[in-house]
C-alpha cells in the first residue's frame, strides 16, 4: 500500500511576517470590539500568545542571533507591547484601539526592516529576490520598499486622524481594523507575484477603502464618495480581471514571470495579449488615477474623511504603482514596445491635466486630489523608463509623495477640525500668523510636493527625471518640468494664503491634539531630513532593482 499522506507545502512565514503582525492586530481589535467591556480578557491573552510564539522562536534557535531569533525578539516586543497597552490604557478604549493599531503597523515596519536586513540583504549589492508560497509571493525590492511606504503611512495617519475622527463622531471600532486590513492588502499587492494573489490583495485593500470612505455615515458627501468609489472601483476591478483572464488564456500562466515566458513564445497570440494589456492598463490606471481614468479622484478625495483621504493618497498610490511596476516590468516586459508609448503618453496627459485642473480649485482637498493625479504622472516616468534607475526612482518617488501628502493632509485636518466643514483656500488666510506650526507644516508639504530643493519631494523628482532622461524620454521630462512650474503656482497659493494674507478677526486657531502633533511633526521632520540627506532610504531604493523574473 502506498503512502497516501499528503505533504503540505512548507509555508515561508518569514516572507509575509509584517502582514502577519498586521493580521494579528486586526484580529485582536475585532475580538476586543466583540468583547466590549471585557476587552482586556481578549487582548491580553492574544498578547501572551504572541509573546509565547516569540519566545518559542527564540528558544528554537537557541537565541544565537540568527535571523529567526531576531524575528522572535520582534515578536516578543509586539506581544509584550500588546499586553502592556491593554493594561495601561484599559480605561480609555478609543486610545487603546488606536494604539494597538499603531503597534501593529509599527511591528510590521520593524519586521519589514528585519526582512530587508536578514532575508534580502546582499552585502550592499542589489537586494536578493526570492519567491515564497509556491511562487505567489515575491520578496524583493518592490515588495520591501512598498511595505516601508505603506506601513510608514499607516503609522503616521493613525495618530494624525485620531482626534479628527472623534470630532466628527465617526470613530467607531471598525475604523482601525479596516485601515489595517487595507494596509495589509496594499503590502500584499506589492508582493503579489501571481495574478490571483494580486487580484485578491487589490480587492482586500479596495473593499476596506470603500467602507472607510463612507465611514462618515451622516455626511452625504462621504456617502456619495463611497458609492462612487465602489461602483467605479468594481467596474475597474472587473476590467482588470478580464484582462488577467485573457492573459492567462494567451500565455497559460498565472505567475508573472510565467506570463513573460509565455509571451516570449513566438506562437503566443499577440492580438489577444494586446487586448489583455489594454484592459490591465485601464484597470490599474483607475487604481492609481492615471488620466483618463482619474474621474473618481476629486470626488472621493473630497468626500472621504480627511484622514482616509490622506491614507488613500499616500499608501494606495504606492501599492497601485508597486503592482503596476511588477505587471509591466516583469510580466509584460516582452511587450514593452507596445506599452511604453501608451503609458508615456498617459503620464504626460496625467501630469498636464492634474496640474491645470488643480489651478482652478478652491477646495483644498480637491486641489490636493488633482495634485495627486499629477503626481501619478511623475511616478509613471520612472516606470516607462524601464531601467533600474527608473524602478528605484518610482519606488523612492512614491515614498516621498506619501510623506509629503500626509503632511499636507495633516495640516488640512487641523484646519478642518476648527472649521467643522470642508476647507477652502480662504480658510487658510493668515494661518501663518495664528498658528505657525500648522502653516509651517503645510508650507513644507507644499514645497515638497512642488519639488523645491532641500525637501524630500525634490529628491523624488530628481530621481524620476534623471531616469526619464537616461531612458531617452527627454520630452516626457520636459512635460514634467513645465507642469511642475504650473503646479508650483497652486502650491504657492496655499502658502501665500497662509503667510501673505491677514487672518479674519475672531477666527479660532487650528486645533491640535497630542497625536496630531506627533504624526504631523514626524512627517515634517521626514520631509526635511530626507530632503537634506536622502541617502539612507534612497540607497535602499537603489538596491531594490532585483526582481523575481
Amino acid at each position, binding site marked *: 500500500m502506498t503512502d497516501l499522506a499528503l505533504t503540505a507545502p512548507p509555508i515561508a512565514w518569514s516572507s509575509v511576517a509584517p502582514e502577519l503582525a498586521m493580521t494579528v492586530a486586526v484580529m485582536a481589535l475585532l475580538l476586543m470590539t466583540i468583547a466590549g467591556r471585557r476587552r482586556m480578557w481578549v487582548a491580553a491573552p492574544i498578547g501572551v500568545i504572541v509573546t509565547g510564539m516569540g519566545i518559542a522562536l527564540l528558544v528554537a534557535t537557541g537565541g544565537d542571533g540568527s535571523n529567526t531569533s531576531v524575528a522572535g525578539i520582534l515578536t516578543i516586543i509586539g506581544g509584550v507591547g500588546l499586553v502592556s497597552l491593554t493594561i495601561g490604557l484599559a480605561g480609555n478604549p478609543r486610545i487603546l484601539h488606536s494604539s494597538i493599531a499603531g503597534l501593529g503597523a509599527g511591528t510590521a515596519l520593524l519586521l519589514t526592516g528585519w526582512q530587508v536586513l536578514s532575508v534580502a540583504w546582499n552585502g550592499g549589492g542589489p537586494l536578493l529576490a526570492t519567491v515564497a508560497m509556491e511562487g505567489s509571493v515575491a520578496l524583493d525590492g518592490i515588495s520591501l520598499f512598498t511595505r516601508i511606504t505603506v506601513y510608514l503611512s499607516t503609522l503616521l495617519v493613525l495618530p494624525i486622524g485620531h482626534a479628527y475622527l472623534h470630532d466628527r463622531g465617526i470613530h467607531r471600532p471598525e475604523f482601525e481594523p479596516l485601515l489595517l486590513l487595507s494596509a495589509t492588502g496594499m503590502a500584499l499587492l506589492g508582493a503579489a507575484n501571481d495574478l490571483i494573489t494580486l487580484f485578491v490583495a487589490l480587492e482586500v485593500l479596495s473593499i476596506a477603502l470603500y467602507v472607510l470612505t463612507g465611514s462618515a455615515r451622516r455626511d452625504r458627501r462621504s456617502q456619495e464618495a463611497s458609492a462612487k468609489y465602489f461602483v467605479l472601483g468594481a467596474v475597474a476591478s472587473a476590467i482588470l480581471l478580464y484582462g488577467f483572464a485573457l492573459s492567462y488564456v494567451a500565455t497559460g500562466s498565472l505567475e508573472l514571470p510565467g506570463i513573460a515566458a509565455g509571451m516570449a513564445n513566438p506562437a503566443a497570440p499577440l492580438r489577444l495579449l494586446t487586448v489583455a494589456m489594454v484592459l490591465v492598463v485601464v484597470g490599474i490606471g483607475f487604481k492609481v488615477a492615471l488620466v483618463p481614468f482619474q474621474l473618481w479622484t476629486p470626488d472621493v478625495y473630497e468626500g472621504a474623511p480627511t484622514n482616509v483621504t490622506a491614507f488613500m493618497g499616500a499608501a494606495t498610490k504606492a501599492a497601485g504603482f508597486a503592482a503596476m511596476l511588477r505587471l509591466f516590468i516583469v510580466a509584460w516586459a516582452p511587450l514593452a514596445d507596445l506599452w511604453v508609448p501608451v503609458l508615456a503618453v498617459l503620464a504626460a496627459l496625467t501630469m498636464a491635466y492634474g496640474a491645470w485642473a488643480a489651478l482652478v480649485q478652491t477646495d483644498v482637498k480637491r486641489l490636493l486630489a488633482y495634485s495627486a493625479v499629477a503626481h501619478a504622472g511623475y511616478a509613471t516616468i520612472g516606470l516607462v523608463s524601464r531601467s533600474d534607475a527608473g524602478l*528605484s526612482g518610482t519606488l523612492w518617488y512614491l515614498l516621498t509623495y506619501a510623506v509629503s501628502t500626509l503632511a499636507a493632509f495633516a495640516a488640512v485636518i487641523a484646519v478642518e477640525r476648527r472649521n467643522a466643514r470642508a476647507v477652502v483656500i480662504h480658510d487658510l488666510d493668515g494661518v*501663518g500668523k495664528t498658528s505657525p506650526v500648522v502653516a509651517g507644516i503645510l508650507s513644507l508639504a507644499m*514645497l515638497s510636493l512642488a519639488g*523645491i*530643493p*532641500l525637501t524630500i519631494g*525634490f*529628491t523624488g523628482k*530628481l*530621481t524620476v*527625471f*534623471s531616469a526619464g*532622461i*537616461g531612458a531617452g524620454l*527627454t520630452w516626457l*521630462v*520636459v512635460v514634467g*518640468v*513645465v507642469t*511642475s*512650474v504650473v503646479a*508650483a*503656482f497652486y502650491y*504657492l497659493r496655499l502658502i*501665500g494664503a497662509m*503667510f*501673505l494674507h491677514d487672518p479674519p478677526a475672531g477666527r479660532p486657531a487650528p486645533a491640535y491634539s497630542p497625536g496630531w502633533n506627533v504624526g504631523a511633526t514626524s512627517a515634517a521632520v521626514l520631509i526635511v531630513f530626507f530632503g537634506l*540627506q*536622502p*541617502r539612507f532610504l*534612497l*540607497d535602499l*531604493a*537603489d538596491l531594490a532593482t532585483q526582481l523575481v523574473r
Partner: protein
Amino acid sequence: MDFIGEFIRTIPDNLVALCVAIPLLGAVFSGLLTESDDTARWGALGASLLAFVASLALLLDFDPAAGVQAVDTLPWIPALGANLAFGVDGISLVLVLLTTFLMPLIVVAAWDHADNIRGYLAAFLALEAAVIGVFTAQDLLVFYVLFEFTLVPMYLIIGIWGGANRRYAAVKFFLYTLLGGLTMLVAVLYLYQAGGAQSFAYDDLVNAAQGLSLVQQRWLFGAFFLGFAVKVPLFPVHTWLPDAHTEAPTAGSVFLAAVMLKMGGYGFIRYCLTFFPDATRELSLGTGTGFFSVPWMLVLAVIGILYGAIVALVQPDIKKLVAYSSVSHMGFVVLGIFALNSTATSAGVVQMVNHGLSTGALFLLIGFLYDRRHTREIALFGGLAKQVPIYAGLFLVVVMSSLALPGLNGFVGEFPILLGTFQAVPWAAVLGSFGAVLAALYLLWAYQRMFQGPLEGADNEATTDLTPREIGIMVPLIVLIVAIGVYPQPLYDLVQPSVDGVLAAVNGQ
C-alpha cells in the same frame, strides 16, 4: 577639551564650508532657537560678521594662480554620485566676499524692522548660506539645489515683508525663476546621462561635456542660459525684476540686486562657458552660419542695456528707476562675459562686484528715504540737498559710481568691458556705450529732480538727515566704492587668472 582643540585645528581646512555653515547656523539660531528679538538681532549680526571673517581668512590663504582651492568634500547622495563639495577660485571668491561684506550691513539696515524680525533675519541668513553655496559649489547637483532653494527665502521676504502689491510680485518672481531653474535641471540631468558622467562633480561633468555634439551643446547651452538669464535678468525675461524690487523690503532689494542677480552672471561663466565652449563661441561671437552667425548673447546684452536705460528714464518711482538701471547694468556684465576676451570677461566679473556695491548702496539710501517719507515718487521730492546734505552727498557719490564716473568703481568695470567688447565685436561696444550715456542721463536727472532746485513742501522741509547708524552702514560701502575706483588692481589680480583659465577652455587652448 580635546574635541574643541581638534575643531579649532580643522578650521583652516574648512573655511569654505564654514562660510556656508555659519550663516545657516545663524538662521537656525535667530529663527528657531531664540524667543527674544534682540538676541536674534545680535545673533544674526554675529553670524554675518563671523562669515565675513571666515571669507577674509579665505582671502588671506588664496593663491590666484592655483585655480579652484580650499576644496571641502562630504559625501551626500552616493546613489547619484553627488557630494557636498565646495571650493573657491578667484571668481567665486570675490562674489563670496561681496556677499559676506554686504550681509552685516543688511542685518544692521534691517535692525528696526518691526514685523517678526526673527523670521526676517533667519530668511536672510538662510539666503546668504545658499548663495555662498551657489558661488562655491563644485558639484553641479549641489549648485542646482542651492540655486533653486534661494527662491524660497526670497519668496517669503518679498511676500511677507514686502509692499502693497507683494503677493503678485512674489509669485511672479517665484514662477519665473522656477521655470528657468527647472529647464536647467533637465539640461543638468541630460548632461549627466548623455555624457556618461560618473558623478555630478564639476570636473567630471566638464569631461562629460567634451563628448557632446554641437547640436547637443546648443540645446543644453540654451537650457542653462534660460536658467541664468532669468536670474541676471536679461531681456526679455527680466519683467519679474522691477515688480520684485518695488515690492521687496529695503534689505530684500539690496540682497536681490547686489547678490542674487550675480548668481546668473556667475552661472554663465562657470557653467555655460566651460561646459559648452563651441556653442558659446558661436552664440557670443557669431562664428557659425545662418542663425548662428549673429552674436546672440551680445545682442541680448545690448538690448538689455539700452532697454533698461530707456525704461529707467521715464520711471516716476526712484526704486523702479534703480531696478531698471539694474537691468541695464547687468547687461554690461553679460556683454563683458560673452565678449570672451580676458579684458572684457574679467571686467564683467569685477563689474558684478561694482554693481553689487553701488546698487546695494542706492537701494539702502532709497530705503532710508522711504522710512522717512513713505513714498518713492521722484516728483514729491525736491531741493532735498539743502535739507539733508549728508544724505544728498552720499547719494551723489553712489550715483556717480553707478554711472561710471572715472575714479569710482563703476568706471573700472564698465570701461574695460566696452574696451574688450570693442576688440571682439565693435558695433556691440558702440551700442553698449550709449547705455553709459543714458545712465548718466537718468541718474543725474533723477538726482536733480530730487535734491536740487528750491526746497518746497512741508514734507520736504521736515525730512531729517541720516542717523549715525545709517551713516555707519554707508561708510564701508563708500570706502570700497572709492577704493576700487582708485586702485582696482588687487581685484583684477584675484579674478583675472581664473577668468583666463575659463577662456582658455572656451577657446580650446
